């Protein structure tokens, strides 16, 4: 009862990006989506997320604080084919002082299955001092709403 009440007070937001359709160039020799595409689409989803949710994201990009991907993993969970469309569902995890994880699940709208899950860790670095930097406050304010 208490948990349900807390979830209603603070539900995790999910950022959804639904602009993915499988074209021939995304398929492999056997007619399935090549796993590389999920990595490329992962970069599109995260950038769409920041552009749509962080009002001054372009200005942040002009500062010495740079965002770097330090690790990424992907799990292929089901096959997809030409013509399929995906809804990429993004949530955030492990928010720390200088880093956080972005978890993206590619949901195939035809098969109604998650085709792939990618998790990548982003760290912030001050390019002038070459030291780790805090997550910019404008971004942190946003990502905490999406923490899973």
């Amino acid at each position, binding site marked *: 009862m208490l948990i349900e009440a807390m979830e209603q007070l603070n539900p995790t937001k999910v950022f959804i990006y639904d602009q993915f359709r499988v074209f021939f160039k995304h398929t492999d*020799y056997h007619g399935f989506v090549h796993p590389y595409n999920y990595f490329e689409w992962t970069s599109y989803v995260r950038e769409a997320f920041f552009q749509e949710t962080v009002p001054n994201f372009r200005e942040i990009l002009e500062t010495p604080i740079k965002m770097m991907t330090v690790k990424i993993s992907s799990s292929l969970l089901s096959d997809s084919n030409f013509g399929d469309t995906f809804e990429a569902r993004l949530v955030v995890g492990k928010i720390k002082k200088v880093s956080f994880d972005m978890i993206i699940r590619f949901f195939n709208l035809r098969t109604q299955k998650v085709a792939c899950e990618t998790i990548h860790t982003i760290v912030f670095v001050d390019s002038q001092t070459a030291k780790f930097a805090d997550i910019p406050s404008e971004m942190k304010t946003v990502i905490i709403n999406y923490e899973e």
Partner: protein
Amino acid sequence: MEYFSYSQKAFVYKYVVMLSDTDQFKHMSFANYLKLMFLASDALFVSCFDVEFLANNRSKMVHSRMQFKHQTVAGDNIIINVNSSEINASQFSLLFTFLIEGSAKLVGLGRQTYKFVSSHAQKPIPLPTRIRDLLIPIEVDEKNLLYAY
């Protein structure tokens, strides 16, 4: 005290970072390193991939991960050493060590796990012999390696 020398064989793939690989931050964007893993694993297996083989067998990636240690810029020569590990009846892993040629600076560490399935039924099948023959000479025990992939 016992001393031993250990010579590690690896499949080597080389790539020169092109301007078109880099983004507005002047570095190669992270998805391109993942693309290089697929290029290197394709290069390893290309001698097996004739039409008849592909008509019956499909390599299917199950899991992949990569850690990034150092960024690269256009003109860098990247050497990718590929080793195999955890070869069993139906699946195996490939380990990728990305280095800058010359300085030997570590760029990244990658790992992919594959299984083979039949092209028709998409059901797991034993590792084809010719694939196993390519993997055995470059097999390593991950417990003995300098890096954790």
